[in-house]
């Protein structure tokens, strides 16, 4: 690892001018001669450095500015202030030499040719990136094996499931062996098993190719498994940058225990184990969620299992939103 950062961002902002339409027909007619514009600060003065080989997680709620930041780092959007540097290039200049070294994958948008099998898009990308035959074959074989998609790359993309498509999207984006990879919600909408598969793959790719990766996600599990470092963005501002474990230790002290009982239990019974967050019984179904201390989650769960008539139990991470809310309120309180 060298000391010069691979990605360097200083005081980066993107402001959009948005036109506010009043609802309804009358609003539409009025908007013909008078329009009110509002400036939305999608990204508002963010700075950070990322070094070679790091996997950094961007965490934030919807509309926090994660994607906008990635788009500026990719050269899609022209920053209102600040000039990001990626691999020593200014992304906005869209130099071919730069574009051949990075890839942007968005879970919400697809690059594959809808009507053709994925393999056709792979060949197209080979032509676009001018990948030599040998390297193309080698990389393709490796990626296809890693993701286990031998059978589906010959099938028309529109007939694939979301998970299969995402795997092919990743392959298409990685054929040119990018050194820098921006993943925007790569696991969105996927089931738990597929999320895990993709996570393992991203990890393996980072190890094998030493790629630097920025990942945005809604799922705490994604970030927890992949990233040592996390940057939390809220309303376009960076509110935390550091070891993910620190955030978890500091702000996500609890885990969530979801319980289903066969018989009625009292709230009091439950309160002995942790904070009761939800409690409901309608005569046939008895469910509850408990907040328990992170370190004691497993022992508490086994205690509950032995003492109460439990049918089902799951231990979950708190949702990302809850953690952010916590971080945000505490960071604010500090100031």
């Amino acid at each position: 690892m060298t000391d010069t950062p691979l990605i360097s961002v200083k005081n980066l902002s993107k402001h959009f001018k948005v036109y506010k339409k009043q609802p309804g027909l009358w609003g539409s007619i009025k908007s013909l001669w008078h329009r009110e514009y509002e400036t939305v600060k999608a990204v508002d003065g963010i700075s950070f450095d990322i070094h070679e080989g790091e996997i950094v997680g961007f965490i934030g709620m919807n509309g926090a500015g994660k994607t906008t930041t990635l788009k500026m780092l990719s050269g899609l959007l022209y920053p209102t202030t600040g000039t990001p540097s990626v691999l020593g290039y200014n992304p906005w200049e869209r130099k071919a030499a730069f574009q051949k070294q990075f890839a942007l994958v968005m879970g919400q948008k697809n690059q594959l040719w809808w009507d053709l099998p994925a393999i056709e898009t792979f060949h197209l990308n080979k032509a676009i990136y001018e990948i030599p035959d040998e390297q193309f074959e080698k990389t393709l074989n490796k990626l296809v094996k890693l993701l286990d998609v031998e059978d589906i790359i010959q099938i028309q993309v529109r007939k694939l499931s979301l998970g299969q498509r995402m795997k092919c999207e990743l392959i298409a984006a990685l054929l040119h062996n990018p050194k820098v990879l921006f993943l925007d919600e790569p696991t969105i909408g996927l089931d738990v098993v597929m999320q895990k598969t993709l996570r393992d793959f991203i990890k393996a790719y980072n190890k094998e190719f030493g790629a630097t990766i920025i990942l945005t996600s809604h799922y705490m599990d994604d970030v927890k498994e992949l990233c040592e470092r996390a940057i939390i963005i809220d309303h376009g501002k960076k509110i935390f940058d550091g070891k993910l474990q620190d955030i978890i230790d500091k702000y996500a002290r609890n885990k969530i225990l979801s319980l289903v009982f066969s018989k009625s239990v009292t709230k009091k019974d439950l309160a002995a184990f942790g904070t009761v967050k939800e409690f409901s019984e309608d005569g046939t179904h008895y469910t509850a969620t408990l907040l328990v201390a992170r370190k004691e989650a497993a022992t508490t769960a086994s205690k509950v299992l032995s003492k109460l008539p439990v049918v089902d139990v799951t231990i979950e991470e708190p949702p990302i939103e809850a953690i952010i809310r916590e971080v945000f309120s505490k960071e604010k309180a500090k100031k």
Partner: protein
Amino acid sequence: MLKKYLAIYRYMFIRSLQFRTELAIYVVLDVLPFFVLLFMWQAAFAGKDVINGFTLPQITQYYFLVMFIERVTSSYFENWRSTEIREGKIDYFLTRPFSYINEILSKDLGGKVVSLLISIPGLLAAMVLMSLIIPVEPLTITAIHATVFAGFLILGYFMQFCIALWIVLLTFWFEGSAGLEHFKWISVTLFSGAMIPIEFTPEWLQKIYAVLPLKYIFAVPINYIQGNILLTPRLGLEVFFSFLLMVGITKILWSKAVYRYSSAGG
């Protein structure tokens, strides 16, 4: 460098071939209005031999040439390309070592070759059929004439391509482009001589016609192949510089447009 665009071109070619029924229907739909137009002219010529210096066979010849040029030079990608930009779907091109404009061009050319292969034989058949009902002035063409005419066609294609591209690029500023699309259609047909020979139009329109380069797409090549005008160096330069100007405008529009891209969605 060229190889990647050839790859796109090849895919578009394959894709167009999948929609041959649709293509065939479009050919018929495109030819029909011209037939209606020819019958109108026939009615206008009833009892007259010459109108504004044109005989009926000359008029029909004019329109057949218009039809032919229209087939070869026109581009219709504004609609879906504008939608593509508005919906933020061009991220793919902007993040890869690949030019969006060249992509549009390769795809359009790929589709064009297919549509020409299908429409030109149909058009020739229609012409033969029509000439049985309405007299058409026969054309005598030399090899030089044919070559220069082909040059005009190629240039005409690029001019129409530029104009269609402007409509697409204006999407970066305006929300919709359907109105602009119609505006393009009206102005191109009116000021290029595609709707009616320019001699028939009022004087104010002829003045605009003289200034705009649109005449180089239809009226000038037709007049040339009919032997009414010669390819002088002056004309050649005029055509060439108009073309350069259009390419220049396109480049400026594009460089300004990308600053406004908002990459919606995702």
